[in-house]
């Protein structure tokens, strides 16, 4: 309604303005015509110098009440005849003298002053001046304006009426739609539906809107479901993870328990070893001791056989003592803590070789030791390892006049391994798998002494360093022991 009103207003104002402008011109034209008519009618009066006649002619102007006054001037500009409106109020205001060639018009003080020349046979003989008030114009304009406003009013009423109806038909459903949309977005309630009121485009719009809402609702449901499913999965996963963590904790605790138990077992083993070293040896000592005493004191009462038996008793107890020592050593090595450091293994080998040479000063054994080799390992344990390996090499080359023992590092089977090689008795490779078992021997005690614990000890030491040990040999030619750390 605002639109229509403003449009009408503008249009009306336009019309009024137009009228204003054109009416002025019209007025001027009309007055001009009248002036000319007066002029023509008063030619003779002017020419014959008859002011009265002129005044009479001019009095016809009373027909038009808007004409306030009129005047005729002679060619020299002198006032010749006058007219003034006869309402008792008007005063003659025209000048007494004007310019001889005055022509034209002007709007002044609420009146229109117009002058036209009086022409006779192409010659100017005088001037006519008329003064008109603008009442007519004003009235006309007033009338025009009232009409315009009347029309305006009617139009506005009509517009109002129409728009009210339209509102009902168009705006209201749309507003309703807008309100629904807002409600949906604010409350997130996708079950709202707009009311369909009519079959036309508005109704279509509402239907489409409702369809859209349905779609949204469907999607919303699907989303919610997916969300719920996801939450469920997250919960499950969390639970799974928690279980895993709990299991892991349990695992850790079990490990801790095992570590504790291991510590206890180790302690028990230590106590056991202590006990063994002390308590087992004592009776052995007694067996040996008293056998010896028997031999010494009662030699004459015993025959050869008896003495031989006693000697065997002594030997047996000695052997047992040795076994006990070996076993204790082996167990100590298993229990001992490994401390890795850089060890000059070449020098260690040289030291062992020296001490071996001292045990049998008469033997001539050639030692070939690779110099400057360093290894990462526990020094005391490595010493024991070398004692055993080199001791074995020394022992099993006992029957060889040109004994030769080598030590070095070489690449074997793609690994860097240390080796101890001798040219002694060697062994049958068929029994190689028995080499490192505790108390396993591949030769009899008569050939070569020993309890068979040496290699088992070596094997254990190598394994504690995380390495491997293996051997190659040819009977009666020699053996080579390889090990990694």
């Amino acid at each position, binding site marked *: 309604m605002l639109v229509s009103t403003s449009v009408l207003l503008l249009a009306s104002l336009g019309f009024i303005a137009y009228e204003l402008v054109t009416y002025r011109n019209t007025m001027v034209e009309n007055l001009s015509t009248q002036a000319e008519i007066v002029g023509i009618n008063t030619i003779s009066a002017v020419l014959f110098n008859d002011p009265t006649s002129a005044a009479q002619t001019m009095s016809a102007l009373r027909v038009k009440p808007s004409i306030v006054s009129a005047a005729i001037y002679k060619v020299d500009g002198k006032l010749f005849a006058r007219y003034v409106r006869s309402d008792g109020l008007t005063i003659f205001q025209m000048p007494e003298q004007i310019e001889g060639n005055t022509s034209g018009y002007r709007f002044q003080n609420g009146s229109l002053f117009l002058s036209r020349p009086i022409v006779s046979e192409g010659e100017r003989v005088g001037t006519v001046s008329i003064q008109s008030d603008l009442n007519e114009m004003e009235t006309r304009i007033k009338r025009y304006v009232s009409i315009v406003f009347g029309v305006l009013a009617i139009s506005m009423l009509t517009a109002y009426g129409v728009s009210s109806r339209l509102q009902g038909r168009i705006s209201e459903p749309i507003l309703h739609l807008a309100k629904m949309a807002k409600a949906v977005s604010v409350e997130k309630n996708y079950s709202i539906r707009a009311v369909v009121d009519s079959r036309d485009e508005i109704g279509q719009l509402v239907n489409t809107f409702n369809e859209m809402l349905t779609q949204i609702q469907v999607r919303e449901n699907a989303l919610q479901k997916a969300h719920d499913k996801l939450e469920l999965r997250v919960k499950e996963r969390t639970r799974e993870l928690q279980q895993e963590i709990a299991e892991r904790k349990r695992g850790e605790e079990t490990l801790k328990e095992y570590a504790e138990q291991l510590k206890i077992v180790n302690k028990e083993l230590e106590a056991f070893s202590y006990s063994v*070293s002390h308590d087992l*040896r004592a009776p052995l*000592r007694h067996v040996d*001791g008293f056998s010896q*005493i028997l031999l010494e004191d009662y030699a004459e009462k015993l025959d050869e056989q008896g003495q031989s038996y006693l000697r065997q008793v002594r030997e047996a*107890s000695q052997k047992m003592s040795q076994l006990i020592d070996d076993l204790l050593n082996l167990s100590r090595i298993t229990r001992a803590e490994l401390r890795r450091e850089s060890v000059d293994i070449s020098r260690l080998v040289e030291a062992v070789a020296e001490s071996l040479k001292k045990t049998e000063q008469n033997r001539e054994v050639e030692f070939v030791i690779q110099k400057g080799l360093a290894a990462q390992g526990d020094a005391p344990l490595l010493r024991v390892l070398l004692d055993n390996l080199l001791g074995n090499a020394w022992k099993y080359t006992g029957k060889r006049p040109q004994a030769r023992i080598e030590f070095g590092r070489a690449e074997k089977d793609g690994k860097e391994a240390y080796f101890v090689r001798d040219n002694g008795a060697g062994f049958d490779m068929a029994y190689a798998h028995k080499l490192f078992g505790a108390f396993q021997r591949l030769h009899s005690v008569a050939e070569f002494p020993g309890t068979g614990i040496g290699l088992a000890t070596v094997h254990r030491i190598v394994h504690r360093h995380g390495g491997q040990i293996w051997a190659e040999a040819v009977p009666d030619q020699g053996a080579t022991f390889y090990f990694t750390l």
Partner: protein
Amino acid sequence: MQNKVILLVEDNPNDEALTLRALGKNNIANGIMVVRDGAEALDFVFARGAHAGRDRSLVISVVLLDLKLPKVDGLEVLRILREAKETRLLPIVILTSSKEEQDLIQGYSLGANSYIRKPVDFGQFSEAVRQLGLYWLVLNERPPQER
């Protein structure tokens, strides 16, 4: 001449017999006093308890101390003897079958003069005793008596 005596602290009768024999064989010119447990050893040394009436003029030339003893343990005897002023310098030789490192460390820490391991072989044992006797009774200078 002083009455010198070797104190043998040994609980096992077999070991006692063998030791005595080894000592005897080597002509150790000392009397040998044998006690069977740690408490008795202390009693004898301090002339108290069971041995309250012992001859106080007796001089103990050396104590041969076994470690595993009933009543009072060998190392405990050692500790007590080393704490007492009159036996602080008394020569004490630990004579035991144990080769355990902890015993060695303890023995020496508590102030034993020597640590001998009894070998199983009687021949070796005999030899060890002989050397012991020779060393402690003949070669070694005894600390002066603190009275």
